[in-house]
């Protein structure tokens, strides 16, 4: 065992865990977004409710979603271990530091950005995931089959301006986390190449802008619709 634990507790090993879990979360974000965009369909929620039902009942999806929780936890735990180590590596700081001249703001603040995302995640899971699973959700019938009307819960939630705004602002922070994290994960895994690194970097920037933007658009559109 010792070589495995040695590897996984080394600074490089820990960063590899961050990169692998981070990349998995990135994949998850893309799938999650594709599902959520169904909230914008003009079908009274039928597509989204059926999708939500399938998500909760397909055994494969359930395994993946348990994996997803484990990976988020691992990403968070390792990020705390790394941040503590990194702080300890410089016990006395500089009086003057020109960090902005040699690195991006996002890259220097991944911990702060991650913490904000974590706060968002707690509110988000409490508001939707927990409600969908354990809350008193009204039902709706499609062709005589009864489904939980989770669509309705989402509509109600985003009618609140502060709630919709909270989502939009949180997605802004996610964008910054991804703007550094996406390409950084490849570098951590040693995947650096003259041909591909610029493409990965470009894809990362595109992903970091597009995905949070589309996520944020959902509460905005639902809020505007709710105004009548």
């Amino acid at each position, binding site marked *: 065992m010792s070589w495995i634990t*040695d590897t996984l507790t080394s*600074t*490089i090993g820990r960063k590899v865990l961050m990169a692998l879990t981070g990349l998995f979360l990135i994949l998850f974000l893309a799938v999650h977004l594709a599902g959520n965009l169904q909230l914008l369909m003009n079908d009274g929620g039928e597509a989204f409710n059926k999708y939500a039902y399938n998500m909760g009942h397909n055994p494969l999806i359930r395994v993946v979603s348990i994996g997803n929780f484990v990976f988020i936890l691992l990403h968070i735990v390792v990020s705390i271990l790394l941040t503590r180590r*990194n702080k300890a590596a410089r016990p006395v700081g500089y009086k003057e530091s020109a960090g902005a001249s*040699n690195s991006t703001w996002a890259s*220097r603040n991944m911990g702060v950005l991650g913490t904000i995302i974590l706060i968002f995640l707690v509110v988000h899971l409490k508001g939707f995931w927990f409600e969908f699973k354990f809350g008193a959700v009204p039902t709706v019938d499609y062709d005589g089959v009864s489904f939980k009307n989770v669509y309705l819960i989402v509509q109600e939630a985003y009618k609140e301006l502060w709630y919709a705004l909270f989502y939009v602002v949180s997605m802004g922070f996610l964008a910054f986390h991804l703007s550094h994290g996406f390409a950084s994960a490849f570098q951590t*895994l*040693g995947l650096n190449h003259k041909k591909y690194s610029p493409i990965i970097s470009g894809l990362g920037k595109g992903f970091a802008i597009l995905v949070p933007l589309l996520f944020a658009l959902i509460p905005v559109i639902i809020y505007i619709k709710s105004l009548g």
Partner: protein
Amino acid sequence: MNLTLNVWRQKNTQDKGGFKSYQVSDVSADMSFLEMMDVLNEKLEVQGEDPIHFDHDCREGICGMCSMYINGKPHGPQQTTTCQLHMRSFKDGETITIEPWRAAAFPVVKDLVVDRSAFDRIIQSGGYVSVNTGGTPDANEIPIPKKIADEAFESAECIGCGACVAACKNASAMLFVSAKVSQLALLPQGQVERKERAEKMVAQMDAEGFGSCTNTGACEAECPKGISLTNIARLNREYLSAKLTSENV
């Protein structure tokens, strides 16, 4: 030029230390930063004060000794060593803040002098090739493609100055270690100890208390020898493949 210097003064490793302000007048724009410090120190000596201790040796940008964190950057505003920095990079009347490298692994010895033997111990742990070198071999006896030779040479340009550690928000030594692992991993002579080297040097780097790499790129931006982040990606590959395939359990 007339300048105000805000310099970190610390008697020894135990001392708490603090900033002290000094005036230097009639500084020529053509002086190097170290010459300006010499002028100030001569004045201090005449006044019977303890001169400001700082490391320096070659004064031509190759030894890596002249560690000073100037106005928030290692080696000051230019991407060069402090000895190659000239006073024309500063304005008349400017206040310049000078601090030592800050890292748990680089304890302050006195004033601006830090102990960088952590780097030496990392090299001792695996940054060598153990073969009997014998007499001078014929050139081109071992064929090495030009591109690989150039790459190895670029990695070998690292002078061990520690600016990468000083610049990094995590005080990480990854750029230094990656350059030292790369220069040997790229060449045929380095193959025998390749896996062991990556494993041992990373283990020593961690044991010395350096931070991990967040890929901010501050090290590359501040390295006076232009060591590139591709070295860090290579170190990650070297380390992972060594850990997965070496026989050291």
